[in-house]
């Protein structure tokens, strides 16, 4: 699929913007702070209903404006569709698809699919476990929109259960009827947490199994040359707080088994949970362990290695998504500046065949020559097609 038009109203620095796009490579260049990333963020928001830069919608609306509107025309093999999202900070956002209002904004997910490479991706390797969980869940929702619902449900059950644990204070010392009253309510929420958590867990495990060969291949391709030497073997392993971490591939992906394992883990840790007032087991505490040559990537990998690995994750996402359906739109936000010449060329060669590639760069010379195509100048809040 590819974007044929993007129109923004009061989004970030843009009061009003409308640009026409086509398949192939399009490069947006201009000095820092002129609005290149804002364009990328808008496109990515239409695909994921979230920003890769901020957690809330308020900063996305231009200062002084009440709401922002994002519109995109997407051409896919099934035909073209018009996506519209209205951001209303503090109130419900609204989404329309082909001018028909959608009951829930998340129903728009899947109409536009993107894979975004951004400087923030470094956190995939160097950041907290939460970054890697978010990567997995975002990709899961992109492969099967059902998981957007599973994830939202899980977060809600988690909030309810945490609230219950907190309201009690330290209760592991309770005995008799008072304890029974607390544990009976907790049992009911444990059942919900295990039911929804098992679905999320199974989804993640399946995703990692499918992703593993793609990540390995992409990592090798970005680094240039085989990574057969023992010092550079990449391993990724899902470490769950729920299931037995003994096996090489982490827990299996069978929902009933995972649900039972989760209930068992919850029962085993109840006293500590009551004492600390937080949920200690479940997919929200899991980690995707990454290691290079036997050493944890987080902490040991150099800046260059970390970048190569982060790129490999994005490339693998792209490969995975294009395997089942048509190409997602590929967006490279300011990534070439971080790479040496060899890696720039190799990355460019890997992505040049995609249906649509959108590139931003402060210095046009950083973009390898094979990524030639349409050019836009982004300057002073205006986006103009370069002559």
């Amino acid at each position: 699929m590819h974007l044929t038009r993007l129109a923004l109203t009061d989004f970030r620095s843009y009061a009003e913007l409308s640009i026409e796009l086509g398949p192939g490579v399009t490069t947006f260049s201009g000095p820092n702070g002129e609005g290149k990333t804002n364009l990328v963020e808008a496109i990515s928001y239409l695909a994921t209903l979230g920003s890769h830069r901020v957690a809330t919608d308020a900063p996305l609306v231009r200062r002084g404006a009440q709401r922002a509107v994002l519109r995109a025309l997407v051409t896919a093999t099934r035909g073209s569709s018009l996506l519209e999202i209205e951001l209303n900070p503090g109130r419900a956002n609204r989404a329309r698809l082909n001018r028909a209002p959608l009951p829930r904004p998340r129903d728009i997910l899947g109409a536009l699919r993107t894979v975004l490479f951004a400087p923030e991706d470094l956190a995939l390797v160097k950041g907290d476990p939460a970054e890697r969980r978010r990567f997995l869940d975002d990709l899961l929702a992109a492969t099967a929109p059902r998981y957007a619902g599973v994830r939202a449900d899980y977060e809600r059950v988690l909030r309810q259960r945490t609230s219950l644990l907190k309201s009690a204070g330290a209760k592991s010392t309770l005995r008799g009827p008072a304890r029974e009253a607390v544990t009976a309510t907790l049992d009911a929420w444990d059942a919900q947490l295990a039911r929804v958590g098992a679905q999320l867990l199974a989804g993640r495990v399946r995703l990692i199994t499918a992703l593993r060969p793609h990540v390995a291949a992409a990592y090798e391709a970005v680094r240039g040359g085989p990574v057969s030497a023992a010092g550079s073997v990449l391993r990724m392993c899902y470490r769950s707080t729920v299931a037995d971490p003994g096996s090489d591939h982490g827990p299996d992906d069978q929902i009933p088994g995972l649900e039972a394992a989760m209930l068992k883990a919850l029962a085993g840790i109840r006293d500590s949970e009551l004492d600390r007032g937080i949920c200690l087991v479940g997919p929200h505490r899991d980690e995707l362990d990454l290691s290079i040559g036997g050493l944890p990537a987080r902490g040991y990998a150099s800046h260059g290695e970390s970048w190569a690995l982060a790129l490999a994750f994005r490339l693998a996402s792209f490969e995975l998504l294009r395997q089942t359906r048509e190409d997602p739109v590929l967006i490279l936000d300011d990534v070439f500046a971080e790479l040496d010449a060899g890696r720039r060329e190799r990355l460019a060669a890997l992505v040049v065949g995609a249906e649509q590639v959108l590139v931003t760069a402060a210095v046009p010379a950083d973009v390898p020559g094979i990524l030639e195509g349409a050019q836009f100048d982004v300057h002073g809040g205006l986006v103009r097609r370069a002559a």
Partner: protein
Amino acid sequence: MYEGVIQNLIDELGRLPGVGPKGAQRIAFHLLAADQADVKRLADALIEVTERVRFCRTCGNVAEAEECRICLDPRRDPTVICVVEEPKDVAAVEKIREFRGRYHVLGGAISPIDGVGPDELRIKELMTRLTDGTVTELILATDPNLEGEATAAYLARLVKPMGLRVTRPASGLPVGGDLEYADEVTLGRAFEGRRLLDV
């Protein structure tokens, strides 16, 4: 902003569910322009409802006496109780016209975020109704969302030692609808609960 009593009316109307500031203003001016007798009837109905309607001491449904008309009706089956969250859910189930049992209104669902635990719901009253052994089946018809499911799970565990038949209405596809318009969660549930076609 308007003066005194009119603004007062607009403010009060605006506090109603589903009525925004513009809607409140529209209703207020409609009432000002309407026939006085009509408005008086509305005002009387509002006063009457606050004075006369209370909650059934047995089931918690809305009632005009100590007990609601369903609890008072001797033709209703006393062996089956359908547990719902709100009085409006009673009205919804009554639309089937085939359910002949009685009801129990909880007054909400367990939701720790909102500070609602089992003690805030009419669960003790339900347990009292179950003690004499008349009731043999409990239908847990709480909402099919996370809080409703948790409430049903809680109740199911609570009454388990009593040896009742405990059921929960099925989740699935709306009758007369198109498969393609069902959302993925509903469809997923419907597939989970699929039945063997015995022919």
